[in-house]
Structures are given as structure tokens and as C-alpha cells.
């Protein structure tokens, strides 16, 4: 299967790889929201972290780490790019279909984009919970 230029570019030069600290540290940090989704048995684990400016409520930085195929890595890389500078509400509007379109994901790889969307929502909700903001229910069933 041939992958798109955009996908390969993100896979080969992934943006924003990393974390804002070790697992225990980011758990304590109120300015960081963390989302870890997927499972090793399924061949995909995505970890997405967002750094939020308390004053403006905007996402100033984002980091990811992904265990998965090229599409999973590219989807999470692109997701970190897309959220930067957005408010939490704006970031929550990002849909997996945005990633599918931007990376021209083939049908068998749609689940990678769903996983990235889930990771992002989980990270946003984690930040909200930590800061006592009401968590919006998102009905995303699989």
C-alpha cells in the first residue's frame, strides 16, 4: 500500500516527540493534561500530553509518544501540531476525519486517527479534571 507524502513526512520527521516529565511527575502537574490510549496487544499505544497556559486557557505546547505503525505515529504527530495555540474547546473540535484527510489515511488505518482523537480528548479531559473544570461527555464508542 502506498502512503501519502504527508504521512511519510510526519513519520520520518515526527513533530513534538517527548513528554513534559516522567509519568509520575506529569500526573502531579496541573498545567499538563495526559492521554494514554490503546493497548500493546492491539499493536497501538498513544500517549499525548498538552501543556496549557492557565491565564489564556490555550494549549501552548504538546508532546507525544506512540508505539504503533507508521500511520499511528504520523496521526499523533499531526495531532500535536494541530492543537498548539488552540483553546481547549477548539482543540476538542478536532476530529479523526481531519487527520484522515490531512494524511490521506487508507481505510485499514482509520483506527489510527480514531486513536489519536481519543488520546487528545483524554488529555483535554485530564487537564479539565485536574483543574476542576466540568468534563464534557464525549460519546465515542468503538
Amino acid at each position, binding site marked *: 500500500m502506498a502512503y501519502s507524502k504527508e504521512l511519510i513526512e510526519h513519520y520520518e520527521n515526527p513533530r513534538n516527540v517527548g513528554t513534559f516529565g516522567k*509519568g509520575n511527575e506529569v500526573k502531579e502537574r496541573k498545567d499538563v493534561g495526559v492521554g494514554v490510549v490503546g493497548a500493546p496487544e492491539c499493536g497501538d499505544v498513544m500517549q499525548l500530553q498538552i501543556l496549557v497556559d492557565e491565564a489564556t486557557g490555550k494549549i501552548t505546547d504538546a508532546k507525544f509518544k506512540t*508505539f504503533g505503525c507508521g500511520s499511528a505515529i504520523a496521526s499523533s504527530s499531526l495531532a500535536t501540531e494541530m492543537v498548539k495555540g488552540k483553546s481547549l474547546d477548539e482543540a476538542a473540535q478536532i476530529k479523526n476525519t481531519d487527520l484522515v484527510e490531512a494524511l490521506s489515511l487508507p481505510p485499514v488505518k482509520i483506527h489510527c486517527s480514531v486513536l489519536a482523537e481519543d488520546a487528545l480528548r483524554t488529555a483535554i479531559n485530564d487537564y479539565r479534571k485536574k483543574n476542576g473544570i466540568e468534563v464534557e461527555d464525549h460519546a465515542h464508542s468503538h
Partner: protein
Amino acid sequence: MPDLPIYLDNAATTKCDPRVVEAMLPYFTDVYGNAGSRNHAFGWAAEAGLDKAREQSAAIIGATPKEILFTSGATEGNNLAIKGAAYMHAKKPAGETGRGHIITALHEHKAVLDPCKRLQKEGFDVTYLEPGADGLITADMVKDAMREDTILVTIMWANNELGTINEIPQIGALCHERNAIFHTDGTQWVGKMPTDVVRDNIDLLTWSGHKIYGPKGVGALYVRRRRPRVRLTAQIEGGGQERGYRSGTHNISGIVGFGKACELCMQEMDDERERLLALRNKLETGLSKNLEHVQVNGHAEKRLPNIANISFGFVEGEGLMMAIKDIAVSSGSACTSASLEPSYVLKALGVGDDLAHSSLRMSMGRFTKEEEIDFAIEKITWAVNHLRELSPLYDMHLEGIDINSIEWQSH
């Protein structure tokens, strides 16, 4: 620096040897007769080519030419052997249950498993043996599964994902003691390893042209004629070619190529085996030395010299393949399929799903050069290190978290 891309997927298919192609060419344009045309020179010439190929094919497995049936490949050969033997030896007619017992293994090729599943639906009982953690099926395992009504045992000689070698001569002896027909899928074995169907107690043996530097679309099935004389129910009916077992005009150019491929393998097998083993050892020790959390899957010694199946912890196989795109390999991760199920072969060995997703199968062949292995070691080492930097699982491992203890939010 070797020429790129590098082909390390010889267990999937091989390049056709130019000497094979050369032998085939006249049979497209000069010797184009139908070997079934018994009354003119065109037919006789084709038949002569057919006879020679049958001798070459018989020689590589220690059979007589009359015991060789040409097929379209190992899938057809396995279907004919398994269904043909089961129908011929069925204890009860179609439509009834209890038609006979068949023994196979969980990690056989689909071309064996699917015919067995069909027979199961048609009233036969099938036992699927579970291999040990080393991937082997032993004669003792087969012995324990044997029943009064066991009519057929089908166990592959060497596994296509792992290269592990089963106890074939011993299983064959057991079958002969118990009057069960013994079939082995020799697709990965024949052409690389010395084979003698009489000594090794084989009744039915399947192999394929394109795994032994021959053309695709041609293979052979050995059917024993003496002690015991094995009979099959034909699966393709028509003109009665191949002693009525396999009708259809002979693929003469393919068959000639198949015969030539067998002859070349027979001549070069011993030297080639040594050379391939050295390459495989180099690859395995090189990667194990360079990287932590590397696991070579399957039995350490009882393995074909050309197949290495290696899991790289904390790295996903398909992502890894993309990072080494100059090297053609296979992965135990089935991330391209909708099921997200990793290799059923590694699963059968009890390799965890996470490590199954992290595996690569690399298979060397006649045209693999040492410098290509050197390049592969270097490139794979780089890619695994790179992807571990991207892997949250590797971070967790470094932080001392057991990833098996986490409750994953699976999909």
C-alpha cells in the same frame, strides 16, 4: 554499500534463478505442444520435457518419478493431499459425522488449516496440536493425540514464519505403525534440506516452485506408491492428466522450470546451507549484541538456516518495517489487516501479543549477500533505537513499570 532495496523475504517467494528461466524459454515458443497429444512430434517433445522434470523432482526427495504429481503450487498440493486422503479413507459417507480423525497443528499454514476446517464441517474430527514454546511438534504430541479412527496426520516439515523443524521422520514412523496416512507440507523445507521420503516415512509431501528459485504457479505432490500405496480422491476432474489425480493441460514451461529448480537446489544445497546459516547467525547475533530486549522466536537449533524471526520489545513491527523501507521483510504484526490480530503462529507458541506485534521475519536466500546482512544489522539497530525513543512503552519500561500490569483501555 549494497544495492537497495534488499530482499530478505525469501520465505514469501524467491527470485527465479536465471538458469531456470533459460531452461523454460524454449517451452513457450518452440516446444509448445500439449504433452497429452500422443500422436505427433509436438506432443512428444513436450512429454520429454515433462518426463525429465518429473525425474528431477523425484530425485530431490528420493522418490520415483511415478510418485510425482505436478500441481499449481503448494496450496493446491495441500488441498489435494488433505481432502483427497480424507475422502478416500473416510469411515462413513458424506452427510454423516464420525467420518474419521485428522491431526494437524495450530501453527500450520492456512493452506493446511483451511482444508482441515472444511473437513471438520463435513463430518471429520480434527485435533489441532499446540506447539511447545519452541514452536516444535514432536512425535510424542502426535502419539498422545492418536485415536483408533485417526486416518490422516498433516504436520508441516518446517514452519514458514519461524523456520522451526518438526519431528517429521519420527511422526512418519508413528503413522505407519498406526496405519494413518502421513502428509507433510514441505514448502519451506524441500530444496534447502536433504530429503528422502522413504527414510523419512512420508506418504504425501507438498512443495512449491517459487520458494526454490523456480517459477510461481507450479508445484508438486509426492504420493507414495509402495508400503503403503496411498490413494487420493481427485479434486480437479477432467482430462485425466497426472494419473487422474490432477486434470488439466500441463503447464509445461512451468513444470520444466520447476524440475530445473529442483536440480539446481540438489546440486547446491549443501554449500548453500552452510552459507545461509552463517548469514542467519550473523544477523541474529549482530542484532542481539546491538540491542536489548531482542528475542529470537522458535527453537534455537532446530530451525531452517535461512529464517530468523525476531521480536524487538517496545517497537511495533509494521512501524519498524516502514523505518527500514530499503529492506523487504515480513512482520508478525497484522496491523494492515482490519482484525488487529497479530501472528497466529507466534500466538500458538505463547509469545505475548505485544511481542508478536513487535516481530520481524527475515529470510535469506540464494541471492543474499553478506554485505546486505551487514547493512540490515546496522539499519535495524538504528530503526529500533529511533522507534524506542518514540515509544511510550519503552519509557514505562525505563521507569520500572511492568507494561503487563497496566489496565489498558483497549479498543
